[in-house]
């Protein structure tokens, strides 16, 4: 079917070499994203990265990932395990995935519903709030690994300039890291976390 569309599109704008190329390209995008995500999944299975583990929510859908993040040491999240989902678009890596924590996480840059608000998951372009530099935005060379490394670093070091959870941000600003509300920062906080 895809081939029929390519040929048909070619027939219609045969003189438009460039348009032609882009039509074909959009059809190819799905194959490319599938390949790339499969490759990353295989790489992560073979060489796991410290700090998180990753897999698919459903083995038949390469576009939906489930990750388990270990609360970074020496942070309020230490000792906790945080489950999150990544939803990749069909035109990944040209567009970023969306990330949502399934575990409750109390953090200035994570919405109360779990949506992660981090600049590298935002598409490049005019920044309507004026907070993000272009070089901190999404790039097509980001992988599950680089995204999670950024998210883990965000857990340790929140960006208080553009909070997604204003209440968490104001607590962070007023109490800073002296804030001790065990359990508040993650529902899956373990016993070790409560001791801290």
């Amino acid at each position, binding site marked *: *079917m895809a081939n*029929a*569309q390519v040929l*048909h599109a070619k027939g*219609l*704008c045969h003189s438009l070499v460039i348009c032609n190329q*882009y039509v074909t390209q959009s059809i190819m995008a799905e194959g490319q994203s599938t390949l790339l995500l499969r490759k990353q999944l295989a790489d992560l299975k073979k060489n796991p990265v410290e700090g998180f583990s990753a897999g698919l929510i459903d083995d038949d859908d390469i576009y939906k990932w489930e990750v388990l993040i270990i609360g970074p040491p020496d942070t309020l999240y230490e000792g906790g395990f945080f489950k999150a989902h990544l939803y990749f678009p069909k035109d990944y890596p040209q567009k970023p995935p969306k990330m949502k924590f399934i575990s409750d996480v109390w953090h200035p840059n994570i919405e109360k519903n779990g949506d992660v608000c981090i600049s590298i998951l935002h598409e490049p372009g*005019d920044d309507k709030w004026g907070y993000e530099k272009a070089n901190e935005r999404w790039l*097509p060379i980001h992988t599950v690994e680089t995204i999670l490394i950024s998210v883990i670093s965000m857990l340790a070091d929140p960006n208080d300039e553009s909070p997604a959870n204003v209440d968490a941000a104001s607590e962070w600003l007023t109490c800073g890291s002296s804030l001790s509300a065990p359990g508040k920062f993650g529902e899956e906080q373990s016993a070790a976390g409560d001791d801290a």
Partner: protein
Amino acid sequence: MGNCFWKIMGNCFSSPTSDDISLLRGSNERMGPRDSTISDHLGPPPPYVSHEDEDHAYMYFPSPNVSRPASQLTEEEQIRIAKRIGLIQHLPSGVYDGSKKIRECVICMIEFVVGDHVRYLPCMHTYHVDCIDDWLMRSLTCPSCMEPVESALLTSYETN
């Protein structure tokens, strides 16, 4: 160069009542019935046409967070996008010759194979043509070093 660029682009975008825009629009309308003949015995495909628009009509990016099919672009946006396509098409490209210096396209993470079409950005980073062109339509920066392609290109023109 300018001439040939506008000749190419003129086809695609410039005239407001452009045949080619309606041609692009037409291509989707006409694709529907053709597909239905293929899938006749599979049952009626009514919601398919609109679905296909979303999935397969090439989307343009008048500004990076906004994507629209060619039929819904303003004239100003068409001109801006045409200029961008022209600029991208003039970046040097070539065929991978098996050089050991660059091995992999960091966008698709696939190793270059001799004969692959590659594009060289002014910062000398190299990608598959298909991988990088799609990105440059959204953002005119090198994904590896984030150097703005446009200004780098101008600088290289000035120094030559």
